[in-house]
């Protein structure tokens, strides 16, 4: 019996473990380390209409149990992803979730429309929450009405289900979640990074060239758990949870909070084999805890 198989809108997952967007590139590097078909899905790096170089370096800084990044959505652009990256990924038996980003509604719509037609893209992840881009973006992730309208527009053009990625940098995450649900989102992914900064003791200036960046890693796990716990009780669409996951135990904690699948970000940098390791560890942990199937864990903290 398979303890890990999960069905979500657009996604038939062998297991609920997938690398988080931006922490796995387009899979090529990890493809050299293990078989990508072992993964539940892959959330590929944010794709924008045009290629982007992103921010100047340094782009990462370490913090206590976390890291800051300000990559700035570097990516080869829609054409590059459609013509090179997605076809390369077709050799693996793994659904792709395409992370879609932009500065204007039109950007999002354009990327969503085309990328959702790719054979192996089974769902979109609307990145309305990237803290590292200067123009426009922030309103999409922080004003419920704006997020709802964007979700609606993207839903209209997308050939596959649409998940919206929520930013934790808001006063009321439940309100944001409800807004995008009302806009037609098929699911939520949460959380993106917290806004943070580190200063250099010697220069007094920010370590990141972009000054501030997104905080990820174990440090933010309690914030993610709290938000998923609160949101999952108020919406009727599934949540893919993320934020500091490193172990099978963390995965179960996210399910208890209310997640139906999870993504692993920063931990891929610490241990590039972490995703297959978690997938391997989960069945035994479920046994120990007395569950037949991982889906029994979803929402147990409040059910």
């Amino acid at each position, binding site marked *: 019996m398979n303890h890990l198989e999960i069905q979500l809108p657009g996604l038939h997952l062998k297991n609920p473990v997938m690398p988080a967007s*931006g*922490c*796995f*590139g387009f899979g*090529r*590097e*990890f493809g*050299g*380390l293990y078989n990508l078909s072992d993964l539940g899905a892959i959330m590929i*790096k944010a794709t924008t209409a045009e*290629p*982007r*170089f*992103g921010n100047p*370096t*340094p*782009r*990462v*800084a*370490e*913090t*206590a*149990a*976390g*890291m800051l*990044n300000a*990559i700035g959505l*570097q990516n*080869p*652009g829609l054409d590059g992803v459609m013509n090179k990256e997605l076809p390369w990924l077709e050799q693996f038996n793994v659904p792709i979730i395409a992370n879609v980003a932009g500065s204007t509604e039109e950007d999002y719509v354009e990327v969503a429309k085309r990328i959702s037609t790719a054979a192996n893209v089974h769902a979109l992840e609307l990145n309305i929450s990237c803290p590292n881009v200067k123009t426009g973006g922030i309103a999409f992730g922080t004003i419920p009405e704006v997020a709802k309208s964007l979700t609606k527009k993207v839903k209209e053009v997308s050939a596959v289900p649409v998940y919206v990625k929520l930013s934790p940098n808001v006063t009321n995450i439940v309100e944001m979640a409800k807004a995008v649900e009302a806009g037609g989102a098929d699911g939520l992914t949460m959380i993106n990074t917290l806004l943070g900064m580190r200063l250099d003791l010697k220069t007094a200036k920010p*370590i990141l060239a972009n000054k501030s960046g997104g905080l990820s*890693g*174990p440090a933010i796990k309690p914030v993610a758990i709290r938000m998923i716990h609160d949101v999952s009780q108020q919406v009727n669409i599934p949540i893919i949870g993320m934020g500091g996951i490193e172990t099978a135990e963390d995965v179960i904690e996210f399910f208890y909070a209310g997640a139906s699948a999870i993504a692993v970000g*920063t931990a*891929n*940098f*610490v*241990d*590039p*084999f972490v995703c297959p390791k978690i997938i391997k560890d989960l069945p035994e942990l479920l046994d120990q805890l007395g569950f037949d199937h991982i889906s029994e864990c979803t929402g147990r903290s409040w059910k």
Partner: protein
Amino acid sequence: MIINEQCSIVSQREIADNIYELILRGELSSQMNEPGQFVHVKIASGYDPLLRRPISIANIDRENHEFTLIYRKDGRGTAILSSKKTSETVDILGPLGHGFPIEETNAGETVLLVGGGIGVPPLYELSKQLVKKGVNVLHVLGFQNEAVVFYEDKFKSLGSTYVTTTDGSYGTKGFVTDVIKELSFDTIYSCGPTAMLKAVEAEYASHKKVYVSLEERMGCGIGACFACVCHTADDPSGFSYKKVCTDGPVFKAGEVVL
């Protein structure tokens, strides 16, 4: 092939002021060949510190399944690393990146290895391999001051070695570039602070073969996170880029923007 392995500590000693030589044993030494590659070191299990640290491979001893890292105790991570003792293990991911292309030099040619501070270590393995190939090697090694000079004798046993210190407390007072002026050679392989690499590139890239090894803050070390990119020299403000961790850390001078 990239391997992740708990390597055991064969020895660790402070070879100069805050400079440590760490000899590790592990099967991944069998994957090491190219001088100038690096490994990504998880200093301690758990999350203090969280990220791996990139450290160049200073010496490969495949016969004994050993390799050497030389590093400066600098921040939190290297401080913890320096307190590790023989019999403990260190979590190593590697070997990573592309190193110095020794195939660009032929036996009988003269090569100049230019190192600055903590950029010196990878030049040791490089020099060994070049000498083995029959290349004449000259070393110019720059340090802050006498207290942090290391491996001078080891380099001397491979070829002429010139040491400079910024404060003049040892060797020639001044910068490596002051010494290089006096020497003749075919190719430069260099590793050290960006200011030094820039000076070397500006002076010699137009008429010599020059290779430089870069440093950049890294996330993954394997090419996935885009933390370590630099612009290519032919498109300095466009989309074209190289990753220091996988395309480098060694680049041909003029390939990327320093």
